[in-house]
């Protein structure tokens, strides 16, 4: 018995020694191999979930970047939901990615908090900063420093269903807002006569992000110079009143939930509405998911004889806590450089933010995209100070209640403004 346990102990000791020497040997081999390779660094990158095409395109771009820069590995992570909440929380916990997407309307808040790395020192002559559309670049500057480089830009334009237009005897898209309302009446149809409208003329999205240009059209403004809400004026409401009257009096427009859909492009795609004002991101969705849909695009009808639309942009920004800043810059420079941007925007979901790339891709000649690229010149950028997210939430809530007829537009938006400003004051 005793002998047996002794031999067992010997055996286990021998096994342990053998294992240890094996591990040591392996480590030696691994180390010597690693010495022959250049040191690689890993840069983490985060963005939100876009459509699958865009995701595949980004993966391709990152692969190309890695093959051009063998010393840099990119670890990409998609944040599926509540992107900004996640990014803010990770920034607080020092766990944020080195490079990440930043939406233009959230930019003032983060730039003001000094958690982003200023990029001025990294930008070289051949990066050609002057090539970017100035308003887009300005949107990511604070006190003279550049914090982000816009990867692309999207604008809104009018989508119209060609079949529905032909059916109603309309040969061209509306050019003014009055025309849009007249056309909508002709396009609102109850095909089977059951008292329920089967096709509305226009799909309306009563959200500030989509309607901010309407406030400007008659001389209103969204915020005052201190960032407080200032839209609830006669001038600010005139444009919105037209939208509201169309919805409540003409009954020729519908919201997405009225017709059981989740987005503006979906209600258009399912032919619940004959017209909708949507972004260029809807083009690949419509052409790929609904190939039978015949549609055209046109510039947003003029309001008060002025052209207007919204411009949305997203930039790549660098975390101030990033470990390998030089490598992180290499990644940003590639993704927003001429070559990278050309490959990115060739996918067609967004327009380039560099003029040279825009000229090269010729989107101003493209039948579906010319309306969007024309809009870049006169669009209202979706940015208005540090408190815009808060103002937006209050605005959307109250505008909806006006659409539902619970209160007049003026009282609704006065209330939105008062609540927003009270909350802004409380955060200071």
């Amino acid at each position, binding site marked *: 018995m005793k002998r047996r346990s002794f031999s067992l102990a010997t055996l286990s000791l021998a096994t342990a020694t053998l294992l240890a020497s094996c591990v040591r040997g392996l480590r030696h081999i691994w180390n010597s191999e690693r010495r022959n390779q250049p040191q690689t660094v890993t840069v983490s990158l985060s963005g939100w979930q876009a459509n699958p095409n865009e995701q595949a395109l980004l993966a391709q771009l990152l692969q190309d970047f890695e093959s051009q820069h063998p010393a840099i590995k990119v670890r990409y992570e998609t944040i599926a939901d*509540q992107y*900004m*909440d996640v990014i*803010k*929380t990770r*920034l*607080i916990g020092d766990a944020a990615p080195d490079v990440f997407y930043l939406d233009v309307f959230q930019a003032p808040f*983060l730039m003001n*908090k*000094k*958690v982003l790395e200023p990029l001025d020192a990294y930008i070289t002559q051949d990066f050609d900063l002057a090539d970017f559309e100035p308003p887009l670049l300005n949107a990511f500057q604070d006190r003279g420093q550049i914090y982000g480089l816009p990867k692309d830009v999207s604008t809104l334009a009018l989508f119209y269903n060609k079949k529905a237009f032909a059916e109603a005897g309309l040969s061209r898209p509306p050019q003014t807002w009055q025309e849009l309302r007249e056309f909508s009446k002709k396009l609102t149809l109850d095909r089977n006569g059951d008292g329920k409208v089967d096709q509305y003329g226009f799909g309306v999205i009563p959200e500030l992000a989509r309607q901010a240009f309407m406030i400007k059209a008659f001389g209103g403004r969204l915020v005052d110079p201190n960032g407080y809400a200032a839209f609830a004026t006669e001038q600010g409401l005139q444009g919105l009143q037209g939208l509201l009257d169309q919805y409540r009096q003409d009954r020729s427009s519908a*919201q*997405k*939930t*009225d*017709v*059981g859909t989740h987005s503006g492009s979906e209600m258009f795609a399912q032919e619940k509405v004959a017209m909708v004002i949507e972004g260029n991101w809807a083009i690949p969705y419509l052409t790929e998911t609904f190939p039978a849909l015949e549609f055209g695009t046109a510039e947003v009808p003029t309001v008060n004889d002025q052209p207007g639309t919204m411009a949305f942009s997203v930039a790549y920004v660098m975390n101030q806590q990033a470990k390998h800043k030089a490598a992180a810059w290499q990644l940003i420079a590639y993704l927003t450089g001429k070559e990278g941007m050309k490959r990115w925007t060739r996918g067609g979901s967004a327009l380039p933010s560099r003029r040279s790339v825009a000229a090269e891709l010729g989107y101003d000649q493209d039948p579906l995209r010319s309306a969007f690229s024309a809009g870049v010149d006169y669009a209202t950028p979706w940015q208005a100070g540090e408190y815009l*997210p*808060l103002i937006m*939430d209050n605005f*959307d*809530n*109250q505008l*909806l*209640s006006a659409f*539902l007829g*619970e209160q007049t537009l003026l009282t609704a938006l006065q209330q939105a403004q008062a*609540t927003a400003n*009270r*909350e802004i004051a*409380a*955060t200071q």
Partner: protein
Amino acid sequence: MIRKIQSQPGDLGEAVSGYGFMAPAILVLGLFVLVPIFYAVFLSLHKVQLLGGVEFRFIGLRNFGRMLGDERIWIALKNTAEYVAIVVPVQTILALILAIVLNTQIQGRNWFRIIYFLPTVTSSAVLTLIFIWLYNTNGLLNDFLAFVGLPTYNWLGDPNVALKAIMLMNIWSTAPLFMVIYLAALQDIPKSIYEAAAIDGANGWQRLVHITIPSLKPVTFFVITMGIIGTFQLFDQSYIFSEGKGGPNNATLTVVLLIYQYAFKTLDMGYAAALAFMLAAIIIAITLIQRRFFGDGRLN
């Protein structure tokens, strides 16, 4: 305690081993329950700046004072109160009825128990997503309502029905849990009492009202208390329903959703902590009132 240990040195070892055995529980509870509670007290008295340099500024009770002027709190409280007032009685009565039915000798009652219990074991996030499809304007529920000739609703977009839609979903998914609790309690009621009542000539209804329901009183107290706590903490359904905004037009804004918004959207941790304390105070107060209402509410 200390005096006792000093006077009887023999007990010291016993105390040490006692605390030793409890150490894992004390450590875990302390770290994840007690410390956060005290930290929340600390936060609620400060103006907290987290992003770009952490900074705490003592502001006394000003976070609590701010609530008075915050109209979104009143909306959230009103929504939550309406939700509690409808969901708790309905789900309790429904659970009781289901339990009494399943306690009889009907055919295949085990299958019914399993089927009824399924919603409770399914993740509420998944249920909400499924219900969003059912509630679609062109969805199954509206089709059914139209089929039987009832009016249809825009469940997701109309502020007047959005909260009712969440109520319906929650009653459906939590009533079975309480049904199981009632079922267990029903089987504890001695058969002899029913037999005695039957001999005295009591009919089924009289036995239900005078024996079953009074015997279940402690369980009903438990079910209602848990129901109130659960419904006051409504968050995930309204969060998914409204994509975190509490819309349409603040119709699905609940107190916990508001706390989430202040904590993670505006990063105002101090105010969010103060709101959380307000909610805790309300729940405690209601439970105490209910305890008086139910007598001493023995749980065993």
